[in-house]
């Protein structure tokens, strides 16, 4: 512990980062300045410190000059701290003897004048902090070799399957009565036009049958405790009122049930019963009873048709909500997206005109298992002319600034399907820009274009039923500018399909809190790094995949799902996980055992114990549970608690150096 501070040898390494830093900060002067700081044995600068030669430079000095502190003045520690910690480790120096000095993100990129001066202050501060750094040993704890996957859409299913194939236990939790998510609602998928159900159902069945996957449908995660490698999740299992082990999925109960409502799965276009499976290929193929609608539950005991007709006696009204606790090493959040409700943009006529529909409603109308058996029938008739309006709520400051990334393509798919199913149908695409960037997408665009679709570049202002001419009578009229000609345009059609924005789930905020994640400005869950850590999050051991992270098409969603699976497997297959080394410690000499820390800690790390022979009780902190947030240290009245790597001494030294005045 007590190190002779006369032996402190600090090496300071200033990175040019090409011109990113050197372009604004005088690196030579900065290096000279660093050289003059207390206990600095050597100061150098180099083009790219993170490069091989750069790293070698540091290693060499540690070995030859016997450095015992390293300060790297470069980019954000959130970028390269791990890199340089390895460098230290390789050279036999404790990784916690490193201090990063952020002179790029927080200096050269945000300042012009005074950048060099500020860089000096930051370097001096880093050096003085480094002076007091202490070696820490990183503790490893065993990992629970199981994964919790939240959300049973295509992302969740694919991730679960991959992990299960890797021989690991997976709990797949889905809120709805069946897995399948949005994808199973779709009719065909672009650009290959293969039937969505045909490629999804095998995956759903596989997930259901896989020995390593425990499927929990009609269930929700309500609580998550613990830390990376050792999470405890509580799952609420809503009562199905149907015994999964007895039900054969024969469907008699659904035939006999007299109580109808609109089917959520069919976007309200078709009916479902009070006892129902959302769709024929549901997995598990076991119905649930809607307690709101079921008369047996509402008016206790009346009806009970399902009870009577179920030969297996699977209907069981005695079921109640169950809480299940599972232990996992990693969590994958695949909670998907919501489709924006376009009635928010009243001028487009959704909900005012029965023949203005959303893209998802069209998918169901097009689908053989849908409410119309696959015949495109809107408001009772087959539309001979259809307008497809892109960017409804996307690329629009008033709603969502971002592009939803799938609309252009499915709009082309719709056009193709309409022309396939409706004889001499006219289809009009109202677009701002056609974005067909994926593999095979441009080709599909070309194909659709060759099928006689009319492309109109212009964002429509309204859909109206006010006829201004004979040919508009009895039609819906789409009003826009034909921007390529620069004239206002009115297009009479039978049906309008809106392509609403994909938006973050209405409960994204709750999900973010539950799993301790943050949200991007657009409301979607936030990844750790937009480019290099696309599925990892600020919360170690929790990964986000699919549309929960942002709008995506199916290929991207699946790719991310598999990335998430790889991350999770890599984490649990390592067997152990490094724990936060910068945790709280108690100096028992100073502690009075007041218990303030015990009250304040959210993670139940501190407990007040009596050491034998010691009359005063003292605080003792469970290192595995401590997250090093420092709440206890700041609250400790006697200053007995300190946070390793963020000690008072270290922070005050930094402060003093920054102010240029002794504290």
């Amino acid at each position, binding site marked *: 512990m007590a190190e002779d501070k006369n032996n402190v040898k600090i090496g300071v390494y200033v990175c040019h980062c090409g011109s990113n830093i050197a372009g604004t900060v005088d690196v030579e002067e900065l290096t000279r300045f660093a050289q003059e700081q207390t206990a600095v044995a050597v100061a150098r600068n180099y083009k790219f410190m993170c490069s091989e030669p750069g790293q070698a430079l540091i290693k060499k000095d540690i070995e030859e000059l016997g450095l015992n502190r390293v300060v790297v003045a470069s980019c954000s520690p959130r970028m390269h701290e791990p890199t340089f910690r390895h460098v230290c480790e390789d050279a036999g120096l404790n990784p916690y003897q490193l201090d990063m000095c*952020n002179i790029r993100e*927080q200096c050269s990129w*945000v300042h012009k004048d005074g*950048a060099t001066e500020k860089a000096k202050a930051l370097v001096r501060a880093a050096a003085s902090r480094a002076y007091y750094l202490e070696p820490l040993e990183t503790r490893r704890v065993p990992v629970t070799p199981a994964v919790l996957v939240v959300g049973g859409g295509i992302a969740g299913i694919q991730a679960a399957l991959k992990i299960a194939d890797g021989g690991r236990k997976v709990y797949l939790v889905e809120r709805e009565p069946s897995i399948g998510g949005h994808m199973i609602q779709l009719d065909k998928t672009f650009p290959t036009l293969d039937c969505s159900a045909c490629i999804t159902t095998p995956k759903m069945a596989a997930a259901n049958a896989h020995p390593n996957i425990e499927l929990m449908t009609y269930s929700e995660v309500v609580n998550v405790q613990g830390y990376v490698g050792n999470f405890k999740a509580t799952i609420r299992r809503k009562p199905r009122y149907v015994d999964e082990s007895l039900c054969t999925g024969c469907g008699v109960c659904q035939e006999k049930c007299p109580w109808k409502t609109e089917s959520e799965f069919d976007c309200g276009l078709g009916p479902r019963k009070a006892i129902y499976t959302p769709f024929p290929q549901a997995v598990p193929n076991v119905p649930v009873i809607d307690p709101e609608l079921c008369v047996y539950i509402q008016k206790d005991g009346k009806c009970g048709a399902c009870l009577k007709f179920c030969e297996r006696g699977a209907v069981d009204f005695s079921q109640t909500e169950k809480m299940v606790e599972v232990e996992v090493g990693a969590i994958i959040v695949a909670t998907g997206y919501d489709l924006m409700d376009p009635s928010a943009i009243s001028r487009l006529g959704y909900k005012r005109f029965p023949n203005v529909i959303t893209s998802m409603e069209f998918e169901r109308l097009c689908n053989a298992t849908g409410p119309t058996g696959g015949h495109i029938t809107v408001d009772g008739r087959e539309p001979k002319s259809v307008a497809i309006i892109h960017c409804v709520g996307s690329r629009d400051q008033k709603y969502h600034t971002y592009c939803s990334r799938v609309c252009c393509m499915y709009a082309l798919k719709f056009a193709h399907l309409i022309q396939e199913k409706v004889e001499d149908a006219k289809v009009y695409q109202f677009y701002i820009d056609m974005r067909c960037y994926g593999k095979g997408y441009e080709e599909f665009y070309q194909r659709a274009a060759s099928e006689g679709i009319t492309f109109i570049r212009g964002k429509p202002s309204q859909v109206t039923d006010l006829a201004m001419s004979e040919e508009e009578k009895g039609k819906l009229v789409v009003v826009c500018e034909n921007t390529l000609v620069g004239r206002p345009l009115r297009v009479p059609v039978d049906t309008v399909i809106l392509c609403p924005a994909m938006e973050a789930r209405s409960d994204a905020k709750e999900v973010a809190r539950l799993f301790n994640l943050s949200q991007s400005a657009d409301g979607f869950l936030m990844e750790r790094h937009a480019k290099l850590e696309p599925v990892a999050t600020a919360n170690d051991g929790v990964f986000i995949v699919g549309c929960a992270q942002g709008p995506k098409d199916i290929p991207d969603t699946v790719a991310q799902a598999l990335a998430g699976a790889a991350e999770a497997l890599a984490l649990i297959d390592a067997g152990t996980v490094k724990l936060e080394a910068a945790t709280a410690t108690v100096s028992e000499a100073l502690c009075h055992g007041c218990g303030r820390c015990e009250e304040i800690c959210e993670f139940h790390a501190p407990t007040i114990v009596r050491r034998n022979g010691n009359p005063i009780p003292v605080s003792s902190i469970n290192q595995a549970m401590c997250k090093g947030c420092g709440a206890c240290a*700041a609250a400790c009245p006697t200053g007995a608690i300190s946070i390793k790597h963020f000690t008072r001494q270290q922070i005050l030294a930094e402060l003093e150096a920054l102010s240029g*005045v002794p504290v």
Partner: protein
Amino acid sequence: MNVNGFEPKIVAFTCNWCSYAAADLAGTSRIHYPPNVRIIRVMCSGMVDPIYVLKAFEAGFDGVLVAGCHIGDCHYISGNVKAQDRIEKLRRVLHTLGLEDERLKLEWISAAEGGGFAETVKEHVGQLKELGPSPFRKETTP
């Protein structure tokens, strides 16, 4: 009014999970702000010991910024709430020391709010220029 040529010194204690990341984002998005601010990275705003703030003023900083996650978004569940309580108590102490409210700023800046961070700094610098140097300032070179 603005003490002519006076450049206030600010130290910012920023939470590693949100506002420090926000400062990084301001950098990656090249959003410029005055260099008057010096950032000290902490793991959580709840880690900021009142002593640090007092010492900062003692050391001659004209302003102190404590920045954490929005309420409800704390990486450690409620560190920011604790920070808030402490800062409120601390304000009374600062009053008795004759330090104006504006000198100590508590802000919630999420990792997505790079512009927000820059704005906060600009605003604080502006306020401090209005107030002039801290009474505890020993010398005036920034």
